[in-house]
């Protein structure tokens, strides 16, 4: 058992339903998860699996219909602690355009500290530090519409870092970006995880991004389907395919070779590993 003090996000029997036309639709069916400080977690799931709904429970945008969500030991239903919770868990959304508030990059990064009533000199320090962390310092006096998608998303991340949260939840933050923008954002959040020790919950449907995480959680039909290291999760090729998810190409190749009767390892994730395994296989025959 891990030390409970190290648990940052915890859900107990989390259920969530929303009402539409007097009809209840269940989205989450009893989710039990605990995410430790400093972890890099990727949450996978196809559209409508409930992965975004789950993410929005982590900073009290949604409150559970049943069950409990704890953020650093605080129940999210505790209204007095709402700002405390939101300061602990920052959230980056999908559309970069719809989350930037100000007409200047630095003013936008300052938005959260301003809301928290922090002294101007300290805001300035935090804004500069946050912009340097995401490598956007030179752009501090640009206006958001002059930036590319990846740059805007990095500014959005800086706006969250300026709150000094312990955890950053990225709700499909790479979904609307081109490959270059996605790389920029992935590099930034990995750096934040490694250097600053930030806990990252990255909601995505890109397998390549999930492979790089410490831990992968697969959500399907509002339930946790798989939870473990990328190596463990991606062994379940047929299960993942059944719920409409892909596996990395090399993993799929290995799975098909295994099905054809060849002896290959079933936990291949990267191209180098795949090449090594194939070399072994060919030299062995």
């Amino acid at each position, binding site marked *: 058992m891990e030390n409970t003090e190290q648990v940052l996000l915890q859900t107990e029997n989390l259920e969530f339903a929303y009402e539409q036309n007097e009809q209840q639709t269940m989205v989450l069916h009893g989710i039990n998860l605990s995410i430790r400080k400093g972890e890099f977690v990727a949450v996978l799931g196809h559209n409508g699996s409930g992965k975004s709904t789950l993410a929005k429970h982590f*900073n009290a945008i949604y409150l559970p219909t049943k069950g409990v969500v704890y953020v650093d030991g605080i129940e999210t239903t505790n209204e007095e602690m709402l*700002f405390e919770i939101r300061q602990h868990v920052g959230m980056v*959304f999908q*559309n970069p355009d719809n*989350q930037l508030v100000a*007409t*200047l990059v630095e003013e936008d990064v300052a*938005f959260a500290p301003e809301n928290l009533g922090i002294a101007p000199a300290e805001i300035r320090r935090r804004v500069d530090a946050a912009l340097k962390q995401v490598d956007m310092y030179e752009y501090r006096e640009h206006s958001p519409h002059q930036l590319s998608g990846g740059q805007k998303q990095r500014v959005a991340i800086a706006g969250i870092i300026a*709150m000094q949260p312990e955890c950053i939840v990225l709700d499909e933050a790479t979904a609307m970006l081109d490959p270059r923008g996605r790389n920029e954002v992935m590099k930034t959040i990995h750096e934040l995880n490694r250097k600053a020790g930030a806990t990252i919950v990255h909601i995505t449907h890109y397998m390549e991004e999930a492979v790089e995480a410490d831990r992968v959680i697969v959500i399907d039909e509002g339930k946790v389907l798989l939870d473990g290291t990328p190596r463990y999760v991606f062994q379940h090729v047929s299960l993942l395919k059944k719920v409409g998810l892909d596996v990395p190409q090399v993993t799929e190749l290995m799975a098909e070779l295994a099905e054809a009767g060849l002896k290959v390892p079933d936990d291949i994730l990267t191209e180098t590993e795949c090449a090594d395994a194939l070399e072994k296989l060919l030299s062995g025959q």
Partner: protein
Amino acid sequence: MIKDITIGQYFPGKSVLHRTDPRMKLILTVFYIVLLFLIQNILGYIIAIGFLVVAYIIAKIPFKMVLKSIKPIIPIIIFTAILNMFFIEGESEPLFEWWIFRIAPEGVKLAVTMAIRVVCLIVGASLLTYTTLPISLTDAIEDLLGPLKKLKFPVHELAMMMSIALRFIPTLVEETDKIMAAQKARGADLESGNLMQRAKALVPILIPLFISAFRRAEELALAMEARCYHGGENRTRLKQLHYTKLDVFAFLLFVLMLVGIILLNLYAPVLI
């Protein structure tokens, strides 16, 4: 194309006019407009115009920008000048009389002075938007309206609305362009036909634009909430506005102009 629309028409620079506190500039612009209407003397107009010329030179704003700001109001100026000329009935001998038309010297005088006043007013107010970032202007308005908070007037909300509007103008303009291109690709005809037909052709552009604007608003509200936004209460600002010596100097300059104009009105009687 539609992208050329600029709001606020800020003209970047580092002159003393750019560096003057936006609140002071806003106050002095109002001050200047009041001054214009106090003038009763040709020397006063020379002071007012001279001030603008010097200010534009210091701010390094090209002359063609001045023309650009006057251009749209030329028809209004001409129209009011003509009305003033024909409808003011002076006591002195008319300059011109034919059938029901009479032009009195007082009418001519009023037409000319009104034209000068309106031109000065527009050029003076443009100087404010040329030398001040729109975002600084909203900050200035929030600060100057501050006392109204006591009367429960939503000053912070007003300023926030203005700055969000400024933030989203380029985004929505870009979106309009995209929707127009998409509808044209589907065979929409936006350029031909009479006024009614063209107005009707705008419907398939406006509806998607509105729907997307509402969706954006919803997402933005969520993102703002996630960043602990809770209105203007206990909110601090990254950039604090400070009055400097420059602002005191600018203010004194205007007081001097006011005194000068009043003295001219009193002691250099009517040159026009």
